[in-house]
């Protein structure tokens, strides 16, 4: 009997693989940043779902920290490219 959370983990892993391919074959830099954000969001979901599998209980804190760093790094990278385009 396959559990529901394992099915969800498999589906999200497939979506993660598609996001990684989107990152590799992207041409514009903004598409790459968006793909990075997508990969980060899916990894947050995977951390939360793997918290339902094992006996460890504090995966939620780690997922929250990961989501926070994902948000901040996206804004910082976008600001960097904005400033660079302004100077060119």
């Amino acid at each position, binding site marked *: 009997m396959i559990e529901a959370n394992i099915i969800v983990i498999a589906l999200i892993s497939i979506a993660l693989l598609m996001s990684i391919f989107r990152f590799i074959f992207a041409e514009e830099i903004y598409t790459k940043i968006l793909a990075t954000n997508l990969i980060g969001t899916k990894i947050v979901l995977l951390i939360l779902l793997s918290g339902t599998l094992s006996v460890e*209980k*504090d995966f939620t*804190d*780690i997922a*929250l*920290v990961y989501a*926070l*760093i994902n*948000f*901040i790094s996206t*804004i*910082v990278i976008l*600001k960097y490219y904005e400033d660079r385009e302004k100077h060119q």
Partner: protein
Amino acid sequence: MKHHTIPRIVTKLIIPLILLFGLYIQFHGDYSAGGGFQAGVIIASGFILYNIIFGLEVGLSILSINMTKNLMAIGILLYIAVGFMGIIQGLNFLEYNALLDSSKQGQLLGIFLVELGVGLTVSNVMILIFYSFNNLGGKL
């Protein structure tokens, strides 16, 4: 970033939550993952996000460079003071049992104060590193 409305509003909404989460990691570090170092980094990341969105002048008016250096020294002094409380009473360095009469209460208070010092120092060092990346013209 004066005219980017969505990052400004989202940052205004999310910064109290970041600081609250940092405090949770700080004070719940005895029972789950976390502690002073991680909480300091999270609080500093919230402050760095504020600096990036609203500009460095606004950030420096809230927490100046001198204030950062003072707070970081206060954190270290708190740690050392808790450590020397044991030596004064003839015990080892960082002997928490010497802080209060009850041994268990002394352990709790000692861990609390030491983690508070570590968190204060780490968050202010991270903010100071961020300031030094923005070459502030010899102000450091």
